[in-house]
């Protein structure tokens, strides 16, 4: 589908990192973009694109977030949503057997329960779009990670949810899950993880965002931005995977 002024796009967790880059990419193509973040609107004023509409919503409270998003979309007069990218996520690093129960609950709520409940309330907006797309941002750790046990679990849940829902909504709404590998955003620092020299191996966030846009355009799922993408990036075969004007 072509992006134009009638294209409505929701991106959660878009006040920094990959979400913010995605918002910039789609705004540059002329779409209407609604973004969410957990911080107060004042605190993110300087950071977020001025053309985007901001909704403050903390996904630690999944149903409240889902309701806030649909309420705001209705208020600005959206009757449909062409593309929803459920990107917001958090994580924490620790010994897998010393995880704080509150941190486990927050991780599961933000990364798994909230996207599921948001997807549920978004159905009527996605159904009204011509070919609605619902995109989940997972992680290559969804197959398991000792230092991020509950984070990996939440992303595995998201993977399984997307897999089954994609089949359930076949020919109705395209459901995708994209698993980025480690990316040089603020996520690791926020999670309390010092990657040290490993940082040099992390993906460039801009490259990841552009690869996500290209994957959404293709519609294949699941997609991992992992070892193969790293080789391609190193060989500079795909410096700019996005063809302008498409989502």
């Amino acid at each position, binding site marked *: 589908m072509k992006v134009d002024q009638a294209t409505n796009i929701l991106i959660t967790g878009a006040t920094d990192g990959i979400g913010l880059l995605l918002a910039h990419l789609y705004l540059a193509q002329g779409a209407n973009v609604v973004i969410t973040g957990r911080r107060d609107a004042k605190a993110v004023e300087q950071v977020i694109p001025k053309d985007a509409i901001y909704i403050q919503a903390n996904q630690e409270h999944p149903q409240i977030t889902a309701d806030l998003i649909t309420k705001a979309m209705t208020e600005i007069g959206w009757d449909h949503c062409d593309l929803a990218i459920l990107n917001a996520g958090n994580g924490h690093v620790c010994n897998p057997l010393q*995880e704080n129960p509150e941190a486990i609950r927050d991780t599961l709520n933000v990364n798994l329960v909230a996207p599921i409940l948001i997807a549920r309330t978004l159905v009527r907006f996605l159904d009204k779009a011509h070919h609605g797309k619902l995109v989940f941002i997972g992680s290559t750790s969804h197959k398991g990670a000792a230092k991020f*046990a509950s984070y990996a679990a939440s992303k595995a849940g*998201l*993977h399984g949810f997307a897999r089954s829902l994609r*089949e359930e909504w076949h020919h109705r709404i395209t459901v995708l899950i994209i698993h980025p590998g480690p990316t040089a955003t603020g996520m690791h620092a926020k999670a309390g993880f010092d990657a040290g020299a490993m940082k040099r191996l992390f993906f460039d966030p801009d490259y990841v965002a552009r690869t996500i846009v290209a994957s959404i355009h293709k519609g294949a799922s699941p997609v991992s931005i992992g070892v193969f993408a790293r080789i391609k990036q190193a060989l500079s075969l795909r410096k700019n995977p996005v063809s302008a004007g498409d989502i």
Partner: protein
Amino acid sequence: MNILITGAVAGLGRALCEKLLDEGHNIIAIDINKDGLEELKKQRGDLLDVIQVDLTISDAVSRLIETLAKGTRFDLVVLNAGINATGNFEENPGEAYRRLLTINTETPIIMASAMIGGNMMETGGTVVFVSSLSHATGYPGASVYAASKDAIATYASSIRRACARMNINILTIFPGPIKTDHAARHAPKGADAERRMAPNRLAFLVLNAVSQRKHDLYPGVIAKLTNVAGRLLPAFLTRLMRRIVFEKLDKPTY
């Protein structure tokens, strides 16, 4: 052995309870069903303690862990309690999904983490997580259930190595349909109940896997074959599940 079983009143939990009581082990049985627990207690009160808890409520789980921490250490913990929600994804209430994700995913993670990390397990003990055969196939018509069971499988594999260093084994089981009232309620129309595995048979296979210190159990030949098929042809198997399950579900059920 000292044993903890959640969801002990029906299905696999009940079958495990009865087998282990027959072998003379001490059990703490947890369930939401008070009458069911009392009935169990009447049968074998000498070896059995029962605690009624709603494992869909986070605070109740935290209180349960505090209570358990005061008791003896466990040789075997079976985190079995779980629920389903079937039908068109958007037709079940959000609260049903919140409850499902709490009892199927959050609660076993919180309990395992607290019990292993909090020194509540005996050395050489085992924690059993109950995932599902849907881990191999996908489960259109129960996408949130599928999510909850994939999450728990990945949690189990993520902590396995750290637990092995403490000589605690993590066993994940991936059962297909079991012959229970719960499965019957969520089954597609026309499904043959006779083809579901009897809880007693499953309990036998689980206890064997516990004593052999296995990591994963796909119980029975059909589950084993399905797992292989799911690895080779994941998209095909999910499509097949759409035909045999999703398209035959007639109403939202939670």
